[in-house]
């Protein structure tokens, strides 16, 4: 290994040494290095193995498009696979490992794949692994996945923090090269709110390589402007509707030990009034035999390493170029004292301005490169014959492709430009303007002028008057570009897509076999897939396909650009929403009361509901639930009903409004009374149910199911605002204002009488009464409702939420002598099934009121209500619809499960014979056997019929009988007690 660091130059801090390791080997570098530049400085060219053929691969680029130098960094939970060495900022303690090799990078058994390469061409898998069919999933795919591939993810939890945030600006500038800096400066001076984001750790783009003196001045001025925020290390990864951009900031990816109070990555959602896309252009590789041997590099990358990090990758370099960029690289190399063996240029007339020492070979091409793990020589063919030149580095430049990905994220299609020999995106879209090299400009002065002018125009569009561009427009002097897609006559593999090992012949084969369409060719050959998404390869592939098909690249077109521009970690997308913050916990005002009474909680949506209250000696949930149910039917119980949705409805037209949203009548509901209501959807099927009470002439109180609390309020607002704006009606969600307690059981009245100041006898407060009551001797006001879900004599008491625990304690204290118990959602479920009351298990989106036995509730006199028209459709009234009934086992010792299907007695167990299913079931401790509610074809006409209850998933069969859904107190004597 030799030292490739030049003795002077670069933007590195030579006074500080950074220690890092690669494949376990201890190495050093300096601040200002990337992992890639530090490896090159240490003489390491071989960095990875290719995806399919396990070919040795080196560092090709100096930026985000890197397809080869993918490494795994970190250890334990911080392990990160497939990171680009070119984008990793070198830091103390950095651990990097090569990937896709075994046992070592230098000696990789998988390289034997290369010998099989004649058989591994495009479409190989489709053609070869067709039979036997069953082998694909079990044998072939696991084998192939094991052999090919990239890094491996860790199974350990990531110890670091991530966060997401929002930002707003007048102008977002994406890319801090010449055009971006000029745009930001122009907008900054005009007083606009500016965000300038760049994926690099240093702002400047190509100016960092060119050593332009204006960079320092511009950066200093931007830094001094309070209205400009610079975001280095921030990749804008997507452009979304309403001019929202996604961006990932690498906040602490470059530090040895992250501060635990700071995120390692921050995901930005940037809402920009205008944006300038100044992302520059990507240099295109040249397609010739052996163009993937370590030592072959993009010319611009070589310049970048030379000028920014003072690293010369080779001692003797050959330049292969189709444009001026190669000459700039040659000039910089010679200026740094590096030997340039030759400049190979396929153009007939090479650049006239070349003044350097290196000889220029015009009309020539590099046909093949030789070397295994490092470049040894290149074979050149030209007008004057062939020759071989020894070299350990090769700088190539096949022209430039503007980086337009973001501009195409919302559907715009790139357009082929003959003059630029490149695809360009529409220069102006609403809210986004492309500037600089991304819009086809080449020289620094042209880019500066273009960025400044376009920023001024973008600001003018949002009302900034007379913005002065900070740089003058300048013309590009460069001649029109000539595309050069591949070198003819190469013997070795000429790679088009490095990351997926797609070479020239694969694309030709795709065209010959009928997959020449650009989207098909991508899938057939895998060109443009994986982590780099073809940033380097796509345009060459399009050119090659065009030539093979004999058409223009314009006709071939591009594949579709989609977010994200570069890979985004799951951590950044998750932000702080992990562990206990994965989703918010929603707690009832009786949560603490339930907790101290020993509740077991169940998550219901975001809510934590008390499910049952185990007592000493009870070992199963059923024991607790059975005890709670029996005690309520005998004595009394207290249950938290606070999670049900509650909506206050005000207005002089509130009664009319309710008449229209419920299928049953509400207009004549007297003050002080509650009514069970059923809300339909427009299609006539039930949407939600609940009780609504009239507290005064113009004030109603609606309850909804827990799950649909927000949905019903939205529905009401929609109806009021858009269907009937003429009605005066207002809504307020009061779900959280009221703690709601159900007190059920024959002794509930006796218990509540100790707390409620007023007479609540059956005469004074009969079934379905509802009104505000005085409590605790006038010390508190509450709302009392005589409603029952359990089928018992029961009340619901609402008190302001802060008083919940105190009032529940008081009820339990008053109820102690009546043997009151706390009960949870499970016992509530048993009680309501015993009584035949429905929930959303039965209201499953396919039932009409008639299906559930509420047919007579539906008003026939109201002029209209939501769902009325559709409810009259023939099918909605058909007699053989599945309708609500009860089911029970013939042998009480046997049981069945919810979801089981109903078969006619003797019918075969097939879906064709399905006659309905069990919607809810439980063990009834009062009856001593399992009971269920079911929706069965013609159910109510089949009471007493023997059926088979069939669970096809578990192959369980239970003989049952169809019965009334009301198992307890069918005469409703308890309710009216």
């Amino acid at each position, binding site marked *: 290994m030799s030292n490739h660091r030049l003795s002077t130059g670069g933007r590195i801090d030579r006074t500080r040494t950074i220690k890092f390791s690669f494949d376990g080997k201890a190495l050093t570098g300096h601040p200002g290095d990337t992992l890639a530049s530090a490896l090159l400085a240490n003489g390491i060219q071989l960095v990875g193995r290719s995806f399919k053929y396990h070919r040795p691969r080196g560092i090709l680029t100096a930026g985000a498009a890197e397809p080869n130098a993918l490494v795994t960094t970190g250890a334990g939970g911080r392990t990160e696979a497939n990171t680009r060495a070119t984008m990793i900022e070198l830091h103390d303690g950095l651990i990097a490992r090569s990937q896709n090799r075994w046992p070592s990078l230098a000696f990789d058994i998988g390289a034997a794949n290369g010998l099989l390469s004649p058989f591994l061409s495009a479409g190989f898998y489709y053609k070869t692994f067709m039979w036997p069919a069953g082998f694909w999933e079990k044998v072939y795919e696991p084998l192939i996945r094991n052999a090919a591939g990239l890094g491996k993810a860790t199974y350990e939890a990531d110890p670091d923090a991530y966060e997401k945030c*929002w930002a707003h600006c007048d102008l977002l500038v994406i890319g801090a090269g010449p055009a971006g800096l000029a745009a930001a400066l122009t907008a900054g001076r005009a007083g606009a709110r500016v965000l300038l984001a760049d994926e690099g750790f240093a702002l400047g783009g190509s100016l960092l390589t060119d050593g332009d003196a204006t960079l320092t001045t511009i950066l200093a001025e931007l830094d001094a402007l309070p209205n400009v925020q610079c975001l280095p290390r921030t990749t804008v990864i997507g452009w979304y509707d309403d001019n929202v951009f996604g961006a990932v900031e690498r906040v602490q990816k470059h530090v040895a030990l992250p501060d635990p109070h700071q995120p390692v990555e921050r995901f930005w959602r940037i809402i920009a009034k205008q944006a300038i896309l100044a992302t520059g252009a990507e240099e295109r590789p040249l397609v010739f035999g052996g163009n993937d041997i370590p030592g072959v590099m993009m010319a611009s990358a070589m310049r970048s390493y030379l000028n920014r990090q003072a690293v010369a990758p080779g001692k003797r370099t050959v330049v292969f170029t189709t444009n001026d960029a190669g000459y700039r690289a040659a000039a910089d190399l010679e200026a740094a004292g590096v030997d340039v063996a030759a400049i190979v240029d396929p153009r007939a007339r090479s650049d006239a301005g070349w003044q350097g020492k290196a000889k220029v070979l015009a009309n020539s091409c590099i046909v093949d490169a030789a070397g295994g793990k490092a470049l040894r020589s290149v074979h050149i063919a030209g007008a004057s014959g062939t020759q071989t030149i020894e070299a350990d580095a090769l700088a190539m430049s096949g022209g430039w492709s503007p980086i337009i990905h973001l501009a195409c994220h919302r559907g715009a299609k790139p357009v082929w430009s003959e003059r630029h020999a490149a695809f360009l995106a529409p220069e102006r879209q609403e809210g986004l303007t492309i500037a600089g090299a991304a819009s086809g400009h080449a020289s620094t002065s042209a880019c500066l002028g273009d960025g400044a002018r376009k920023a001024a125009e973008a600001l003018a569009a949002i009302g900034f008057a007379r913005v002065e561009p900070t740089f003058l427009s300048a013309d590009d002097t460069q001649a029109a570009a000539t595309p050069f897609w591949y070198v003819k006559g190469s013997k070795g593999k000429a790679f088009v897509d490095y990351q997926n090992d797609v070479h020239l012949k694969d694309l030709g084969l795709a065209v010959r076999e009928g997959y020449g369409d650009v989207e098909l060719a991508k899938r057939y050959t895998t060109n443009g897939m994986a982590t780099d998404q073809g940033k380097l390869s796509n345009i060459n592939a399009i050119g090659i396909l065009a030539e093979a098909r004999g058409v223009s690249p314009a006709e071939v077109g591009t594949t579709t650009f989609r977010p994200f521009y570069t890979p985004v970690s799951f951590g950044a997308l998750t932000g702080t*929403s992990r562990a206990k913050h994965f989703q918010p916990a*929603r*707690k009832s*005002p009786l949560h603490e009361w339930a907790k101290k009474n020993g509740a077991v909680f169940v998550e219901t949506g975001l*809510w934590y509901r008390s499910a049952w209250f185990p007592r000493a000696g009870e070992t199963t949930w059923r024991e607790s639930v059975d005890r709670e149910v029996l005690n309520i039917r005998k004595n009394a119980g207290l249950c938290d009903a606070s999670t049900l949705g509650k909506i206050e409805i005000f207005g002089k037209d509130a009664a009319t409004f309710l008449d229209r949203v419920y299928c049953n009548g509400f207009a004549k509901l007297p003050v002080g009374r509650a009514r069970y209501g059923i809300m339909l959807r427009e299609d006539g099927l039930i949407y939600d149910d609940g009780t609504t009470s009239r507290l005064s002439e113009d004030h109603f109180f609606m309850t909804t199911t827990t799950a649909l609390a927000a949905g019903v309020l939205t529905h009401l607002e929609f109806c009021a605002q858009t269907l009937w704006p003429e009605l005066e009606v207002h809504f307020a969600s*009061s779900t959280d204002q009221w703690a709601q307690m159900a007190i059920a059981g024959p002794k509930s009245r006796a218990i509540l009488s100790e707390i409620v100041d007023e007479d609540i006898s059956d005469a004074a407060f009969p079934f379905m009464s509802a009104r505000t009551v005085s409590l605790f001797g006038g010390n508190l006001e509450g709302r009392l409702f005589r409603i029952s879900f359990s089928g018992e004599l029961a009340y619901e008491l609402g008190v302001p939420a*802060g008083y919940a625990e105190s009032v529940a304690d008081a009820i339990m204290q008053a109820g102690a002598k009546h043997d009151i118990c706390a009960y949870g959602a499970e016992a509530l479920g048993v009680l309501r099934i015993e009584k035949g009351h429905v929930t959303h298990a039965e209201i499953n989106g396919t039932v009409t009121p008639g299906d559930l036995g509420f047919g007579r509730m539906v008003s026939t006199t109201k002029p209209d209500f939501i769902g009325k028209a559709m409810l009259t459709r023939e099918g909605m009234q058909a007699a053989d619809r599945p309708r609500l009934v009860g089911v029970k086992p013939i042998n009480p010792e046997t049981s069945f499960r919810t979801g089981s299907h109903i078969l006619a007695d003797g019918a075969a167990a097939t879906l064709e014979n399905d006659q309905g299913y069990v919607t809810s079931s439980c063990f009834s401790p009062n009856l001593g056997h399992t009971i269920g509610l079911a929706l069965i074809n013609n159910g109510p006409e089949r009471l007493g019929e023997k059926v088979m209850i069939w669970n096809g998933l578990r192959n369980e069969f239970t003989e049952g009988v169809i019965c009334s859904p009301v198992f307890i107190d069918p005469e409703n004597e308890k309710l009216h007690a």
Partner: protein
Amino acid sequence: MPDFPTSRPVLAGKSARHGKGITLEALPEGHVLQVMGATTSADLRALLDSAGLTGSALRPAGYRQWYAVGDTPLDAQALQAIVTALPPGTYLSDQSHGRVRIRLSGTRATELLSKGTAVDLHDSAFSVGHTATTLFGHISVHLSRTGETEFELTVLRSFAEALYSELEELAA
């Protein structure tokens, strides 16, 4: 007869947190009155003043909706007096227990808030007195700018602990 009932603030156990440039504190569970209907901010202000609620702040909360908020609890009589004084077509829903107020202040308050809300909090877009109903992360809040570097978040009681815990973590 059981004891006289007492109200328990949902964030009672949470002490104020002072971070770098951030102060986070739960406000007293005083009163939050949701007013809806055909009135104006000026008329409502006058109504509150005449009811002796000069210390209550009035926060717009959408089309013809407001929250009147303050640190002192109102008893049933005081509440009824306001309801009676409301002009026809205007209605009041007491949310004093349903909504919980959290104050966030300090030079880094907007930075912290930008981690949860998509509302533009720049002085030029959200000056003192501005309000917005928005999300903080996954939780719905009513956000008010009550000072140059002071904000109030009004949240449903059931989400108050989850929101406070999230804010505490971000303020660390």
